[in-house]
């Protein structure tokens, strides 16, 4: 992997490479084709999926637009039952809190269930540097951890891998036997993880929803690894973005099915668990301590942008990735950042800097499939357009400014425009000489596609002639 200076350069370089990887693209297309079929069936079972989207959007709007009130309510209810809340303004504070906690409690080994927030704050690196043994328990994350690669997709971390690659990885890292059975590969991981659940001193999870009314964190999963991560170790830490709020417990009876439908095409994910604190008196088991780390890390910056605030309604279902033709063709790693796909392209400029990350908003044809797929009706593709506008308002690119200067003066003068159109066929006479070469002004087109020929007579001129003939 070559690492270039600017994120934009790196992106173009990686996109060059991944769009040329036909087998990888085909594998991703196949996986997502199955998703479409499953999702279609599940959506149709709803009495009205479109109304459900409105209902979900309404609840998220309420939650996010009264975020201070609901987070206070959550904290009050949660701490009343022995839970601890830590408010982290940024990733450094969050990391420090967790590291201090592990140190003070004499933690030796840590088991993790899926938490994109931990990717966001680079928690694993920090923990490993401090000498803790950290193991990812979600199968896809476990595989990516062994590969020393970030997740490819935030719901399907290793969707880009074929079984033979996974087998080779397990053979190399775990000393297991070669197999081409997904079931056997899963059992290998299951066996390895077993002891870690039992021996871990600390379980770190993410969270899908923060329930204000009852002071609970809700976690959705299929494998059961989060349930084990949060049942057996003495300490449970949940790292969760402040925006994940829902006002009431009953709201989950809408969100859980919608998350499942949009995320994986299931009616309901296998385990949906609500955690309201550490183990209470009289309960048989459960952690002695439960710490919730509420992560801001620039979310309040996005919150302040009222036009794009609804991007914080995101429930991280991944549907927008699944339908995005850019994602399908460049793959998750090419984005070069924690949150991929359309929603990632919307929020990353807010979280990591507009000028450095505006290219993710630019690398889109604005087809709108993401907005159509979003279960909470985030106006995703229009936000990409707004990011482009905001980037320009902040800092114009000199050669682009020049082009649009020329463009608008041309387009405001019909005589000049018509002249340009008349000259086009003439200009095209010279095109064959430079076609596809460095000198070709439309080389980035002609390299891979044929360029149309300008018509001998424009519509303007045809109309003119016809009008004249009719007089």
């Amino acid at each position, binding site marked *: 992997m070559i690492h270039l200076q600017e994120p934009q350069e790196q992106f*173009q370089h990686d*996109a*060059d490479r991944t*769009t*040329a990887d036909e087998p990888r*693209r085909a594998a991703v*297309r196949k996986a997502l084709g199955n998703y479409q079929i499953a999702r279609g069936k599940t959506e149709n079972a709803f009495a009205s999926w479109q109304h459900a989207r409105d209902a979900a959007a309404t609840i998220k709007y309420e939650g996010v637009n009264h975020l201070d009130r609901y987070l206070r309510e959550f904290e009050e209810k949660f701490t009343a039952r022995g839970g601890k809340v830590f408010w982290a303004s940024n990733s450094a504070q969050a990391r420090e809190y967790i590291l201090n906690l592990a140190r003070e409690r004499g933690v030796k080994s840590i088991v993790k269930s899926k938490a994109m927030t931990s990717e966001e704050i680079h928690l694993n690196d920090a923990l490993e540097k401090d000498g803790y043994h950290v193991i990812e328990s979600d199968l896809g994350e476990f595989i990516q951890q062994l590969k020393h690669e970030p997740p490819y997709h935030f719901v399907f971390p290793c969707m880009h891998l074929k079984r033979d690659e996974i087998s080779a990885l397990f053979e190399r890292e775990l000393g297991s036997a070669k197999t081409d059975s997904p079931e056997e590969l899963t059992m290998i991981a299951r066996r390895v993880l077993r002891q870690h659940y039992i021996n871990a001193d600390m379980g770190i999870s993410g969270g899908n929803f923060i329930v204000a009314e009852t002071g609970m964190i809700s976690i959705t999963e299929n494998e059961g690894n989060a349930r084990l991560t949060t049942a057996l170790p003495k300490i449970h830490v949940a790292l969760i973005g402040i925006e994940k709020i829902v006002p009431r417990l009953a709201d989950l009876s809408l969100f859980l099915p919608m998350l499942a439908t949009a995320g994986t095409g299931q009616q309901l994910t296998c385990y949906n668990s609500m955690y309201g604190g550490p183990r209470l008196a009289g309960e048989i088991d459960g952690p002695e301590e439960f710490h919730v780390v509420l992560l801001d890390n620039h979310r309040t910056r996005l919150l302040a942008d009222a036009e794009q605030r609804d991007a914080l309604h995101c429930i991280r279902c991944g549907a927008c990735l699944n339908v995005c*033709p*850019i994602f*399908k*063709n*460049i793959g998750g790693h090419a984005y070069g950042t924690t949150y991929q796909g359309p929603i990632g392209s919307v929020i990353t400029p807010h979280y990591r800097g507009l000028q450095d990350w505006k290219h993710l908003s*630019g*690398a*889109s*044809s*604005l*087809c*709108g*499939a993401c*907005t*159509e797929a979003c279960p909470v009706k985030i106006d995703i593709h229009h936000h990409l*357009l707004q990011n*482009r*506008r*905001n*980037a*320009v*308002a902040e800092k*114009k690119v000199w050669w*682009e400014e020049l082009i*649009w*200067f020329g*463009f*608008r003066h*041309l*387009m*405001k003068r*019909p005589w000049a*425009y018509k002249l340009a*159109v008349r000259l*086009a066929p003439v200009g095209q006479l010279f095109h064959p000489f430079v076609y596809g070469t460095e000198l070709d002004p*439309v080389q*980035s*087109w002609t*390299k*891979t*596609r*044929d*360029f*149309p*020929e*300008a*018509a001998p*007579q*424009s*519509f*303007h001129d*045809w*109309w003119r002639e016809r009008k004249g003939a009719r007089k």
Partner: protein
Amino acid sequence: MRVTLFIPCFIDSLYPKVAMSIVQILERLGHEVDYPEGQTCCGQPPFNSGYWDEAREVAARQLEIFRDAEVVVSASGSCGAMFKKFYLELFHGRPEEEAARQLSAKTYEFSEFLVNKLGVRDVGARFEGKVTFHDGCHGLRELGTKQAPRELLRAVKGLELVEMGEAESCCGFGGMFAVKYPQISTAMAEVKCNSIVETGVDYVVSNDSSCLMQIQGYLSRHSPRVVKSLHLAEVLAQQ
């Protein structure tokens, strides 16, 4: 009815036959066709690139030019979406807002105009051939156009309409995107064109010439057999 045509710049210079076909069809149906010759561009290129002040300057002219039109028909889904939706954003809170609102209310994409405004599905066309329809994204998702073009095609004598698996997938044009991110744009065209070729059709038809430019550009270079692209209007004009 007096129908005022809005012909995007690239149709004007590259695909004038599309516009000529629209004129032909509307006159065949007995309507008076008007074409304000001062029109140039809707402003979408700078708009999509984030240069909204520049786009506004170009767009403001169009508001003037189409002010007196009774009804405006666009030959393109994406430029139609500029008039119908994005001008409202561009001019929000500005003196031109009312003019933008009025233009939006009277603008139609070509197939929507025929089917939903005029109530016409059969324009008396004849076209022998196996055809698949590509849904341009702006038309599909910004304007809600899906059934109208298909109803029109089904009424054409001799035409066999086949659906492709990737009908709603973006072709990868996206304006400047096609040249700023050519590797991604081409990959998307590949997926689209493979789906087209798989159907066994001889023609791919769309209501957006910019999509057709991308699709034909890829097909001409890479397709194992000849597949021609046509705008919906060109098919409907044939008798």
